[in-house]
């Protein structure tokens, strides 16, 4: 079974990403956690009566997707996955941060696609709590980078800070003394 980093640990992952041209019946695929392409997810939502307690499918899209149509559904969405088409294409970092910061999205936020281990700390700080790396990348290396991540000038999407926020009061006391 594939493995990903989720909530700070390496776990087996049974989630399925349904490709855009794949016509798997949704009902059977809902037995496990799935991510539908955004367009198909929206079609399904519009044609479906949502009953109380019904499990919703997750949705995935690229970092440059237009997500305006999704915004009203965010509080009912269990999981969102953003695909990175190249590890040098950082659009997804901003889209993830935007979902958390501007839209208060609180469900699973997953990054997948062409990602390398070295990006795990940046993904985490932008609000991704689930990270699937590209084939060949070491999850253990990524974990060690997450664990070795100590201080930063910006904090994270969860607790943003300005650079001197916790430093000036103690430091200015000692500066004044000297």
């Amino acid at each position: 079974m594939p493995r990903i980093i989720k909530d700070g640990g390496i776990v087996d992952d049974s989630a399925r990403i349904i490709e855009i041209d794949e016509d798997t019946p949704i009902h059977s695929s809902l037995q496990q956690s799935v991510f539908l392409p955004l367009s198909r997810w929206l079609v399904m939502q519009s044609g479906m009566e949502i009953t109380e307690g019904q499990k919703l499918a997750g949705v995935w899209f690229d970092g440059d997707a237009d997500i305006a149509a999704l915004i009203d559904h965010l509080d009912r969405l269990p999981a969102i996955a953003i695909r990175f088409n190249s590890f040098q294409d950082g659009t997804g970092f901003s889209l993830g941060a935007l979902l958390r910061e501007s839209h208060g999205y609180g469900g699973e936020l997953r990054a997948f696609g062409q990602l390398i281990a070295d990006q795990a700390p940046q993904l985490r700080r932008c609000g991704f709590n689930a990270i699937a790396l590209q084939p060949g990348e070491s999850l253990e290396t990524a974990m060690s980078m997450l664990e070795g991540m100590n201080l930063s000038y910006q904090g994270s999407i969860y607790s943003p800070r300005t650079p001197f926020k916790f430093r000036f009061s103690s430091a200015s006391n000692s500066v004044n003394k000297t």
Partner: protein
Amino acid sequence: MYQYDDYDRQVVQDRVQQFKGQMSRFLNGEIAEQTFLPLRLQNGLYLQKHAPMLRVAVPYGVLASTQLRKLAQIAKTYDRGYCHVTTRQNLQFNWVKMEQVPEILEQLLEVEMHAIQTSGNCIRNTTSDPLAGVAQDEVADPRPYCEIIRQWSTLHPEFAFLPRKFKIAVIGAHEDRAAIQLHDIGLRLVEQPGVDGVGPSGVNPLGFEVWVGGGLGRTPMLGSRIRSFLPQAELLAYLKAILRVYNRHGRRDNKYKARIKILVKALGIERFKEQVEDEFKSSSRSDHLLKPDELAYARSFFSAPNYPLIDPLEGEALLAEQRQQHPDFEQWLTHNVHAHKVAGYAAVTLSLKAVGRAPGDIHYRQLEAVAALAERFGFAEVRTAQQQNMVLPDVKKSDLFALWQALESEQLATPTQGTAADLVCCPGADFCNLASARSLPISAAIQQRLVDLDKLYRLGELSLRISGCINACAHHHIADIGILGLEKSGREFYQITLGGQSGNHSKIGKVLGPALAAEAVDGAIDQIFSVYLKLRLSAQESFAELFARLGVAPFKEAVYAQDH
């Protein structure tokens, strides 16, 4: 100047360790070359023609004498004895060994320096006015804000993989000595208009005029004003909003259309502004705002030094006498010495344009000498300038003569600042892999035509810049005379542009005509000088003014008539 605390040291230390790990994973084959490329670029490491090049960040161009000594030691130990001042106030080592880079980074950390984000598609070193804090025409010192931006932009998780590089410049003076309109974001400190005496000490609250979308390269553009007043507390939140809009919507399909200037142009400044303001409103929280105490703390690092009280008149009298006795000194005073906000003091340009040396190159013995001079004639601080020179910011006027003598013996007193011989030049194809043509031989040939100081001074203030390729590292577009190296079927050609300007009246130069062969360039430049001298109405008419009056035609005629 800013002093690291344990926090800063830890951030840089962590990055050095991370890079060390990345390098060893690359060397043992765990990371593919293509993957390692952006990782090493984000740490300032290029692979060039002869050897790797390491670009070291000089935050907003401020260096302490201890840092100069360390840089001298690095140049001596790991390089061929010298380094190079860039047009973005950084320093480059052109002959380092790749496997020694982590060691060099550890050495740099000892003096609170690093190479983080000196390259790659991320937020680069923030640049500023080389006279920041001492300029006479300053509303407020930009350095505290530069430092805040330096920290905020360092290893920002959201903006490490932007569509393209991103450059920010901050000034606090009326005269723009940092070319803010040519930056992705340009910031100018201003007092809030229309509000009187509501600030803490009876002065108007400070904030920023914000410019966005400037840049050179293949499609040179001047920035547009997006905000006429941004309260200083909102600085980082607003930068984040601009960067987020750019990171989400900037083009990634074509390297040459990926800078923010293309996005701003495509949307138009009004629509771009709308998007930024929407983003700013929806994502800003109080956590993103700079608190007054925090700003005061940042400013505390840059409070004016204790200038010893001196009698300015005494210094002036002595200077007048020395001037008369030493015409060479007089020339240097005229060109390389600048007004200072404190009476009796001056700021001094240390010229890195000695004839026969590559513009901006500095030898380790000179670095050591500059360190000693900064301690003897100032507060142990030096600046790097975009014109590839250095500046001693706080020299007593009564010390100028002694300083001049010392600089003369170090070949740092070439009295040509602001003239055509103060030419700015990238390393070009002699070193750089990106270059299309060599720039150093062209620079040397032009220098040779300007060794006669009388002729040079007749030309007056005139900027000349040479870039070895379309990336425009020497900023040739904004020079009175710009030269751009091109390559056509294996041969080097050079395109000349005229009429560019930087500063408050920034302007992009116009192409003179078809590109010239290498051997024809210095002759053509000489022709351009002659046309200017012949046609100007008086010695007071600057090259820019004459060009505005007559355009490209008389120059074109002279250069291409001579060509055949």
